[in-house]
Structure formats: C-alpha cells, structure tokens
C-alpha cells in the first residue's frame, strides 16, 4: 500500500459525483462516503485494521451457518469428492487420477445426505459402502483439481481443530473457507485502493460480494472455488503493480502461472488481464512494446500453468481417467448459449441447488446490476487517461466472453465440453467490481449500501 497517496488522490478528489440535484437526505447519504473516505485517508493504519476486522466478522457470519450444517448435508457442488481430497490431504496424500474415494467421504455423504438432492440415509450410515453404492463407481473426480487448495485447507483445518472449535474434519475444512473469503474480500479492497478508490465503496462492495449466494455456495463448503476471489484479486493487483513498474516481468509470469495450480478456470484472471493491458495501450496509457510484453507473459503464463498441471496430473495418475457421463462434444450452439453468460449470472446466482433465503435474494438483487452499470459507465463515460477505463473494458469483455473462452480452452485441452456455471467466473469477479468500487455515483452508493446491508442482515438472521 506504499504508493497509495498518489493512487488514491484522483478518486478521492476527482470522482465525487454531483449530489446537488438530489433530495437532501439522499444527497447527505450519497455524500457521506466522501467525508468518511477523507477521514480514513488521514488514518490509513486504522482504516486497514477496521477493514480487516469488519471483513473477518462478515466472513464468519457468512460461512459459519453453512459450514456447521444448518443447511443440511454436503454441497451438491462436488463436495463429496472434495471432502475425500481434503481427507487425503490431511493425511499427506494426493487425489490422483484413478484413485477411489475413501470411506470417510462416503460415510459423510450417506449419513448427512446431499443438500437438495439426497436425504440422509440413517439406515446405512455406518455400514461399509462398496464402490457400487456411491457415485462414479467409487472413483474420485477431484483429481481434475491441483492439490493446492486441499493441502492449504487441510493445514488451516488442523489449526481450527487444535483450538477446539470442532473435532470434525469436514466442518473444520469448511470453516477454513472463512479465511479464504476474508482474504478475498481484503484483496478486493486492496485492489480498489490500487486503482484509486477510497474506502467506503470498496468495503461495501466487498461485503455485498462476500455475502452473495455465489460466494456462500463456495466459501461455506469444501471447494477450491472458495479461493477464486482471492486469486482473481491477487492477479489483478499484481498486474496493477506491474503497470506501475513496481513488479518485475518474472514476478508477473509467476502470477500468470499460479492460478492454474489452484483451479484451471482461474486462468481467466490472467487472460482477461491481458485484455486490460491492451486496452490501456490503445487508450494511450502505456507503450505498445511494454503492453505486448506483459500480455504475452500473461497469456503464455496462464497457458503454461494449465498445460503443466495437466502434464503433472498425467504423471501422478494411478489409473485411466474417469470420463464423466455428462461430458458431451461441444457445438456452436453451446458457445452461442454461453455468450454473455456472466452478465446475468455473477454473482447473484450460485448455479447450485443450494437454499438461499428470500432476504438474501432481495439483498443480492441489486449487485449484478450495479456491477454491470458501473462497468458500462466506465466504458462509455470515463476519459481516455483514466486508469479505470481499461479495467471497465476488460471486465465487460469478461462478462460477455468469459464463459465462451473457458469452454474453448477446455475444448482445446481435452476435446470435452465444460458445463458453464457462475463459479467458474469467480476469478473475474474482482475485475467486474473495480469500476463499481471506484465510483461515488449516488445510485451506486445507495444501491451498494442497501445490497450489503440487507445481505448481511439475511446472514445474521440465519444465526
């Protein structure tokens, strides 16, 4: 955060919105962030401490009800195989291609059921479950993911069990999601600060996103997607530092390679960051030579990361890969269907049959519109020299083309088709959020205040 004074100056002083035409109470509310931002700008250390505490509390409020089973059994979003991968990682083992799911995860699934799909089966709970009685003939499908998330989560889960919060592996693994969500929201605020935002809008946006059904569906359960926000914000933050010449080429390459080693769809973050660099050059904000170097590093790094993981996965395999029965050859119709997919699906829709309370549905409703509105506003209204302009363009490109690009990558890599789902776009969410976090338009301020407030209330009510 060392260079914040110059970075934030433009936003704090220059991006205030005219509030004189608004009724007085609304104008006061909309103008509040300017005063709060100024106050915190003079007390940055305090601002970071309060932000960290607030986001940590929000993460706990969001994650604990889901993680501790108030919603029932394991998540239908592959948590059965992820639980096994966590169990194996806890014992220092990888989930390799051709491995079978061990009894712990089989018992958890049968005894607790699968949310929305399969009720608990107390009559067979505790009985040894043979391969034929569990999905996929007992084979794991978690081998498709790198072990990074599972080993890091297993480590945090050990600490959670050591402090006595729980003795259960699955519950402790899920509670680790609160840490990944906190870090993701914090990274989001840091990202906004790097692009010149104040404090209020980034924190409110981070809270609204952290409370959204999409984030609950991945953070409250065992899922590598729970690192999506953190990885996406981290990549974009690194790209910003590289733009400012505070990060060397080699570090940018490492940042481009790493997302694939958490989850392959996260390569969308470095890929669309390359779009950001190109737009910045087209707007005259950077030289083409440096832009082409950076873009090449990001695209090649992302590709190399994905290829390296697939090669490593092949080397670790103990058997032939299990072919998912849903795998179907892609057609042009499929790509057409996924055009603009993230426009309407991120982040309000979890894409999973997990229960969402009515209050949270209403709370999350304005968020995608605010993200889209701010991105469109950024594209059409910002001046060429504004550093947010390229993020707005890259974000719009991600919303419109993200799912198609991901489907195309999977098709090239495997010949198979990936069923699009909002969580695959999680690493792009920070990019979508930057224009909103950098604005102080009254509609955006009041909208995000309402969205974040109602969403937090919805989670508090669950307690």
């Amino acid at each position, binding site marked *: 955060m060392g260079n914040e004074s110059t970075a934030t100056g433009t936003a704090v002083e220059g991006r205030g919105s005219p509030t004189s035409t608004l009724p007085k109470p609304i104008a006061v509310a909309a103008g509040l962030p300017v005063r709060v931002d100024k106050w915190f700008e003079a007390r940055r250390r305090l601002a970071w401490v309060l932000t960290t505490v607030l986001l940590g509390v929000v993460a706990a409020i969001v994650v604990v009800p889901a993680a501790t089973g108030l919603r029932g059994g394991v998540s239908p979003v592959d948590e059965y195989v992820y639980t096994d991968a966590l169990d194996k990682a806890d014992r220092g083992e990888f989930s390799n291609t051709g491995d079978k799911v061990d009894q712990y995860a089989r018992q*958890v699934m049968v*005894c607790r059921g699968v949310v929305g799909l399969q009720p608990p089966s107390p009559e067979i*709970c*505790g*009985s040894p479950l043979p391969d034929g*009685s569990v999905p996929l003939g007992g084979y794991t499908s978690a081998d498709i993911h790198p072990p990074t998330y599972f080993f890091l989560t297993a480590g945090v889960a050990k600490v959670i069990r*050591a402090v006595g919060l729980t003795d259960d592996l699955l519950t402790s693994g899920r509670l680790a999601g609160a840490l990944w969500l906190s870090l993701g929201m914090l990274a989001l605020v840091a990202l906004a600060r790097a692009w010149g935002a104040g404090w209020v809008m980034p924190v409110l946006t981070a809270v609204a996103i952290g409370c959204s059904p999409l984030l609950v569906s991945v953070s409250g359960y065992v899922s590598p997607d729970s690192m999506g926000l953190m990885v996406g914000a981290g990549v974009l933050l690194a790209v910003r530092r590289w733009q400012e010449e505070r990060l060397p080429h080699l570090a940018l390459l490492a940042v481009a390679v790493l997302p694939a080693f958490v989850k392959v769809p996260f390569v969308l973050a470095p890929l669309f960051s390359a779009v950001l660099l190109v737009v910045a050059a087209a707007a005259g904000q950077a030289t083409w030579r440096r832009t082409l170097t950076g873009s090449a590093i990001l695209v090649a790094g992302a590709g190399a990361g994905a290829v390296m993981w697939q090669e490593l996965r092949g080397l670790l395999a103990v058997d032939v890969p299990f072919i998912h029965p849903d795998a179907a050859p892609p057609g042009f119709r499929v790509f057409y269907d996924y055009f603009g997919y993230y426009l309407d699906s991120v982040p309000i829709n979890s894409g999973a049959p997990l229960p969402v309370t009515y209050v949270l549905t209403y709370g999350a409703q304005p968020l995608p519109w605010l993200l889209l509105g701010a991105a469109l506003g950024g594209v059409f209204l910002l001046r060429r020299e504004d550093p947010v302009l390229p993020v707005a363009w890259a974000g719009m490109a991600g919303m419109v083309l993200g799912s198609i690009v991901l489907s195309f990558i999977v098709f090239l890599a495997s010949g198979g088709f990936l069923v699009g789902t909002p969580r695959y776009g999680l690493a792009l969410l920070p990019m979508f959020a930057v224009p909103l976090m950098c604005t102080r338009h009254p509609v955006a301020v009041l909208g995000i205040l309402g969205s974040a407030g109602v969403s937090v209330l919805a989670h508090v009510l669950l307690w």
Partner: protein
Amino acid sequence: MRARLAWAALLTSVLIGLAGCAEPVFVPVAGPGAPGYGESRTTPPPQVVITQAVEGKPLPDGGYIDAIGREGADLRVTGWALLNPEPPRGELQVVLPPGSTAEVLQVEALPRGDVVGVTGNPADLWAGFTFLLRGSLPDDVGICILSQSDQGAFRLGASDRKLCRKHK
C-alpha cells in the same frame, strides 16, 4: 517489545490449551464425528450363478434390474432382490440368451435404504447387488434374473420375460 511478544505467546498458548480441553463448539449431527456414530460390519453378497431357463409357472415379480452397462468387454449388472439378511444370502440365477456364455465376476452387496423405504422391512437393507459378466454377450443382450431365498422365488423387474421361460 520482547516482553509483549512473550506475554502474547503465553496467552495464546493458554487459550489454545484451554480450548483444546473444552468440548468442541461445532459437532456434526450425523456421520463420522457425530455422537453415537459407529461403523458396522459388511454383509456378504448373494451367490450368482449362470443357469438355464426353468419350466413351470412364471415367477412373481420381486426386486429390480436397475442397470446393465458395458465396462470394457464386460457387462455390469446392478439391481436389488429380496434376499436373506444373513448368510447364506440366497441365490441370483442369471438366464442368458441362447448361445451366449458368461462367467460371473466381482459380486458385491450394496446397501439400499430406498428399498427399505418401499418394503418397510429393515432386513432388506442389503438387498442391492452388482456384478460383472464376462463372456460372449451381444450388445443388444437382454437377460433374466431370478432370485431364490427364504423370502421366496422371484423374477426381477426389467428382466427379459421371454428368456425367463424355457425354450422348447
């Protein structure tokens, strides 16, 4: 500064120690780690034999062939039947199309909570089965499976009824 760090470390250690001695806050309601959870022993599978069709009256329906699918050159058959809860579990008789030969591999008993839900008999928990057939079996093969146990003799649903009767 060092003294503060030492105090902080001591306080943290005491808190962790106390927390470790206390009852866990979050306890799962079912499954591993839940109060009262225990693992029970496995149940042996029924005997599966290849047989010729039998003469006589058609058997009543009981049980079901849920799936027949290719696994490489083999056929995997999965379903449930009314079997004995304890060994000997009973017998599954597989009637193949004329001219086909096969051997039975990898027989497993499967727990079927849904069957208990339908029959209302907890003894039917391990009514499920799965096995592999290896042999000269055409792709469009139909099979018939008959079950024989203390519960009686039945023809499994989805059996090829023509195969279940003896050809003359």
